Each structure stands twice: as C-alpha cells, then as structure tokens.
C-alpha cells in the first residue's frame, strides 16, 4: 500500500519542531509500524537525509521503549498493542498517518519522537520496591499467597513503563503507572509491611516530577497497551488514605 506520513521532526530539546511529510510506497501489510519506519529511515539514510529518531529495542512489546502518538492515539488505533507490534494491515492504501512524540510537561522531547521519561524512574526510586537486602529472604514457599491475589498482582505488575497512560491523559497524570506498582506490592503479603510509606512516597514523587492530577476519565486504561485496569487507581487511593 501507499501511505503519506506526517512526522514530528525536532532536532533537539531546544529546537523548534514541526511536521514533515513523507511518502511511503509499497508498504507490506505484514510489516509492523516500526518496520515501516525502519524502511523510511533506510530510504532517508540512502538519500543522505537524517533518519527519524525513535526509541525502540525489544520489538516484542515488553521493554516499553517505543511509544508515539499515531493518528492521535498512543501506540496507534489498535487496543492492547505497543507500537512495535502494531501491524500495518490495520491501515489502508492511501491513508495519511500523523506521528508525534508523547506530549507531557514531565516528558520533554529529546529528539523527533524520543522523549525523556526519566521522571518515571524517579518515582520508582521514591518507593517502588520492597526494602529487603539480598540474603535475608525466607523460603519461597513459606508464605502462602492466595492465587487470586498473586494473579491480580501480576496483572498490575506487567506495566512496561512506556508512558502511554500519561500521553493519553488530558492532565498528563501518571496515576495508572504509579497505581500499577502500588497494587503489585499491596496485594502481596511481602509488600504489605511498608505499603503505607510506599503510597505516600510514590505519590509525592509523582507530584514533584510535574505530572498532573487524576480526574478519572479512564483514558489511560483505554490506551494502555498492557490493559492495566483503572481499579488499580482505586486501590492506590485506598493505600494513600491509609498512609495519612
């Protein structure tokens, strides 16, 4: 198929950016969206033009590196998929596709489609862990965990930290991201001991990093490639109230 791409190009954090239009011909429907961008980049490199910079690594939807707005949707129009997995068969011949970096105060643009998501790491440093030194763990089987709790904890723990929730939110809130970690630990007996301190510290970290507040629109859940549930935010709120 033949496509028109309108891609946000920005040389660096300080430069002014803008959309640049590219024509792509003979795009195979079996390609992923990133492979289509690879093809564009190879074409640009051959013409000695600067390829489009974008973060990517594992290409199997798990590292969380990739992420961009595609026609206004984080990771594109298909639910529960990261950009690296988005197949081109969802697009049609003649389509115009608009590609932009995440837009959020806490995620400044680095170059083209790459943004700085180090604010996420900072929040995790505030309390996204269980305080236990190597060597002091009891036997793995000694503390039973209810299957339902372990499964629900896992469903929260699979967050890949891509930032789509922030990008989707009109307030650029990181509540879904933070709640995923809070929930993972709150549901496990191992994580209960410091659950209160964790909720307080991580929420404070989120505010400090410049993310907005949550107004429960649910856009984050709708766009999350890993389908992290809004119920995690409810659980975060409960844990947060208990913290004070």
């Amino acid at each position, binding site marked *: 198929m033949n496509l028109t791409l309108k891609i946000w190009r920005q040389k*660096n954090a300080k430069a002014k950016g803008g959309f640049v239009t590219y024509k792509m011909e003979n795009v*195979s429907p*079996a*390609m*992923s969206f990133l*492979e*289509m961008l*690879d093809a564009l980049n*190879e074409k*640009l*490199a*051959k013409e000695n033009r*600067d*390829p489009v910079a974008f*973060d*990517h*690594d*594992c*290409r*199997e939807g*798990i*590292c*969380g*590196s990739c992420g961009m707005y595609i026609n206004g949707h984080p990771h594109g129009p298909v639910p529960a*998929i990261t950009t690296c*997995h988005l*197949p081109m*068969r969802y697009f049609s011949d003649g389509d115009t596709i608009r590609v932009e970096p995440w837009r959020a105060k806490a995620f400044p643009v680095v*170059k083209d489609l*790459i943004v*700085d*998501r180090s604010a996420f*790491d900072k929040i*995790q*440093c*505030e309390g996204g*862990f*269980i*305080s*236990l*030194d*190597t*060597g002091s*763990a*009891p*036997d*793995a*089987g000694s503390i*039973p*965990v*209810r*299957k339902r709790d*372990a499964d629900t*904890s*896992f469903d929260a*723990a*699979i967050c890949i930290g891509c930032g789509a929730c922030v990008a989707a939110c009109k307030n650029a809130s990181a509540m879904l991201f933070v709640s995923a970690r809070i929930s*993972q*630990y709150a549901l496990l007996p*191992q994580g209960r001991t410091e659950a209160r301190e964790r909720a307080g510290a991580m929420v404070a970290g989120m505010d400090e990093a410049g993310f907005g507040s949550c107004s429960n629109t649910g856009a984050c859940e709708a766009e999350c490639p890993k389908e992290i549930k809004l119920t995690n935010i409810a659980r975060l709120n409960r844990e947060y109230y208990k913290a004070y």
Partner: protein
Amino acid sequence: MKKLDSKIPDGPLAQKWTKYKASSRLISPANKRKLEIIIVGTGLSGASAASALGEQGYSVSSFCYQDSPRRAHSVAAQGGINAAKNYRNDGDSVYRLFTDMIKGGDFRSREANVYRAAEVSNQVIDHFTAIGVPFARDYGGTPETRSFGGVQVSRTFYAKGQTGQQCLLGSYSSLNRQIKKGNVKMFPRREMLDLVLVDGKARGIITRNLITGEIERHGAHAVVLATGGYGTIYYLSTLAVNSNASAALKAFKKGAFFANPAFIQIHPTCIPQLNEFQKKLTLMSESLRNDGRVWVPLKKDDKRQPGDIPEGERDYFLERRYPAFGNLVPRDVASRAVKERCDAGYGVGEAKLAVYLDFRDAIEKQGRKAIEDKYANLFRMYETITGSDPYKEPMSIYPAGHYTMGGLWVDYELMTTIPGLYAIGESNFSDHGANRLGAGSLMQAAGDGYFILPNTINNYLADEIQRPKTSTDTPEFEEAERAVTERINKLMSIRGKQTVTSFHRRLGKIMWDHVGIIRNGKGLEKALEMLEELEDEFWKDLNVTGSTDELNQELEKAGRLADFFELARLMVADALNRRESCGAHFREEYQTPDGEALRNDEEFAHVAVWEYAGKNKAALLHRELLIFKELEMNVRSYV
C-alpha cells in the same frame, strides 16, 4: 603467554562454594564506601549486582544504553527460572539440576561453576519471591512450577509468559532502592566504547553520552561487564535490536580472553520472518512445548490447511525421533530436527521454512481455560503478529539465533584475564557449556549478580582499600578517549553510499548460512573470505548521516556493526577449530549415522579460549581442559 588459572577451590564439589566463601577476604563497611565499582549493563545480572553491591555499601556506578535500566533485554525472557526446590517431590535436587546442566551443555562446561549455579538457584527464587515478584501460585498459595526442555522434573518457576520481565523489574526495584540511598549512581543512555587499563588492571571506561554525543571518562577500582549476548550478529534474531557485543569486544582487545565464541544457541520456536525489513524474530517460549506438539505433513508439498490433514498423515517428528523426551528435547536438538525436515522439503507455509506447533490435543484434553491460564499472553502476541489464532490453528514456527553460551572467559571468581575486570550473566561463558537449558539464563544471571559476584569481588578489592579514587586525568584515560574519538571520526568520514543496516543484513546472512544451526569446514572457510570482503567494503562505502555531537542512532549502529565484524571472524575461527559436534555447535563432518552430534572428547573436552593478537592477526588459542570428576562423560541421549 598468560596462563589460565580457573581458581577452582579444592575439596568435594558440594563444599567448594561454602569453603570459598569462608576463606574469601572481607572488607570493612567503612572501607567499602571508598571503593568504586563500575557496572555496565542493567539486565538481570547487572541490576542484581549493582543492588547487591550497593546494599553492602560499595560506591557503584551503573550504566545502560537504554533510557531506563528497566528496559534491558532480560525483560523479554518468557518461560521461567529454574530452581532445585523439589517442591513437586519429583526427585529434584541441587545435584540433579547440576547433572541436567552439565549434560544439557554436552560436557563442555566446568563442574564447579555449574554446581554453584545450581546451588544458588534456591536462594535466587527465595529472594525474588521476597522482593515481590508475583510468581504463579497454586490454589493453596504455594508456588507453581512447570517443565522445560531437556529435563524430566518440574522445577521451572514462572509468571505466565513474562517471567523475565517480572524478575528484571524485581532487580530494577532493588536497584532503585540503592539509587535512592545514594549507593548507586545511575547513568542511562550511555554506551561503553572502551575499557581503560592502568598498570594492567581494569580502572575505568570511556562512554558516549547518547543524547549529547559527549565522550566521558569514568574511573573505578573495578569494572563489571554485564552486557549480555551477541545473537544480533545474525541480524535476524530473538534479541532486542540494539543488543550488541561492543563492550565484550573492547575488553577482548584490551586483553580479556574470549571463550567458545562459536557456541550460540538457536531457539527452535520463533515466528518466521514475514517481511524483508524485519530484524527481529519473536520467540515463542519453550514452555509451549509442554503442551504443543510439533509436526509437519507426512507428504511433501502438502497444500492442505493444517486442520484438514488427518492424524495419520502427520509426522510428529520430535516424538518419533526422541520418544523419551518427545517435544521437550533441548533447544539445539529441536532446532536441528526442524531444519532437517524443512531442508528435506516437508516445511509448511509459503517459503516452506516453518513447522507446526499444535495445541489442538492439549485444548481438547485440558480445556481452553487451562491453556489460557498458562499461555494467554503468548497466544495473543502470536495472533497480533501473524493474524492467525493459535487456539484454532497451529502456530507456524522456525529457529532463530537466541543465546550465546560463549563469552568472556572468567575464573571461578567471575574475573576475566584482566585483573579487576569481571563478566557476569550472558556476557561470560561459564555455566552453559555448548548448550543452555531452558529457564537457565535468568537463574544464572540473577545468581551471578545477587549471590556470586558480591561474594568474590571482595577477594580482589581487599587489596585495593589503600588505593585512592581512580583519577581520570591520566595518560591512560587520555589515550583511550583519543582512540574512541578517532574511530567515531573515521566512521563519520567514510561518506560512502551504503547504509549501516544494509551491511548488517549482509553480515547476518553470511553468519546464518555458514555459522548457524549447521556448520562445515568448507562453508566456514568461505565465510571467512566473504567476511573479509564485506568488512573491507564497509570501511570504504559506509554512509553515516548526521553528526557526532547529537543523538545519532545511525552512528550508534555503525559502531556496533564494526565490532560485530571482528567478533564474526573470531566465531568462525572457533567454529573451524572445534572439529567435533557438541551441543549447539554442529559440524556436518562429525555426526552419527542417524544424524546426531558426534563429540570428540579425546581432543575437544576443553574450553577454547582466544587471546587478541593485534589488528589483522589471527587470535591465539589457549585451552582450558575440562576435567569431570563427578560425572562420567557419556553420550547425551534424549531418545
């Protein structure tokens, strides 16, 4: 010529590690604070080591090329992590895990190291559970396990098909705790471009800041490489596309010996290539072979849909050839069997380069829900990529480059031949011999990082407590930085016509065709010639766009590819030298009449250890003889 001393402690196998720890020198907490350690890579081994050493009070600096340590490729490991807990009461033990690993590695690994890896596996599972890794649980609340290829017990702990992600995020969380405490300083988006030696000891690294392009110097008392494997040398592989061998290769060129570079595992169950721009082949976890049956049509060129082919006209070739292990034979055995069927013309799909992995019988027997519980995310990933529903029709799979058993040579303390330089996780060679068993990589990486290195590095650093901080304002750092800058400028100044990716594609094809699942002397000789020509062309006709003082992904790729050319030659030399078949290394000339690997223990029961001899010179070969005191070197059989 340096002598290889593996430093294996005396005494009975089961007591070596305990004995070592009891005699290893200690360092007081006050002195630990003054000792600086650089750790390159934040995958499971690197993040574990950084956190464990931070907890002990060392001053750690941690580096990764990604924007966050959480993205390192351990995150993509799917199926599970082994531990000898014997929770299933099925006859498992540390000794049994050790035996399985030695046998799985086809008697090409060190007994003492493998036993230790099996020994710490239980501590690893305890630790991950305690730091909140949500492993699968049974209804009674105890941890679940499953089976993996090459073994007959159920010892693999898992978190659906995302065990690597959960373990890595566990290590990332403990790393973050140490960053918050100030014990670890994190340097993301940095690429190590050289190792710096002062008086023959590893004292620092040169990095490039991938955002600004700035070349930076970092000094320390010791350097740890946790930089993973080099499967991306095939271009198409299961690895993250930016994974590379540059750090290991720089260390090699500075004097660290490289062991068994040709030992690379080809994973049998990957989604076949769908288009020419693809550079990633997605792996479908080996755990799927617990319930999936591998087959091809009995008839060549069978054009029917898989569902239309009756039972009697299917060839379940793994079950046929290996009745005892069936679909759960080790990866190398399965990969070769798949290739054999496809080469013989029985492959399926358009290119006839695929076989079926079929869940029909498992779904019938256990119900769809049970299969969903185990593999939901894998099935969904398969459907997303291919558009075909594995609950309804079988998956199509084909082998792809995956894991490197080869790596930097290390002694029992995980130190390379350069004093003060350590290699942990996939970047060393130590525990998997000629073939790694499934669910062994997470186990080894976490074991190295959490429990082994933090108990061996002190033995070296105890001599360093008097040494002040390493100054980076010295001729050694100056020279290393100059060399790094010079090479970058050289890559930028070629200004030829061909892109980095086009060269990588061609390198990958040479390596896959001649140094892939099956090798032979003639093909390897030919590969050597082709590699030389291609490398020559690379340095004459490469074009790198952009400039050096900015984020430049083309330049990053170019540097990694240049290093791959050097490593490729080393892999070929090693494959040529090893005139036997063992584990994943299959030389066509050395096979049994029924096509199984034919080992030559008389001549090759050793680690092939290569020493850099200078530019355009053949590397020098050393041998570390492998002595099996505990186990008899028998023929590996899965029939």
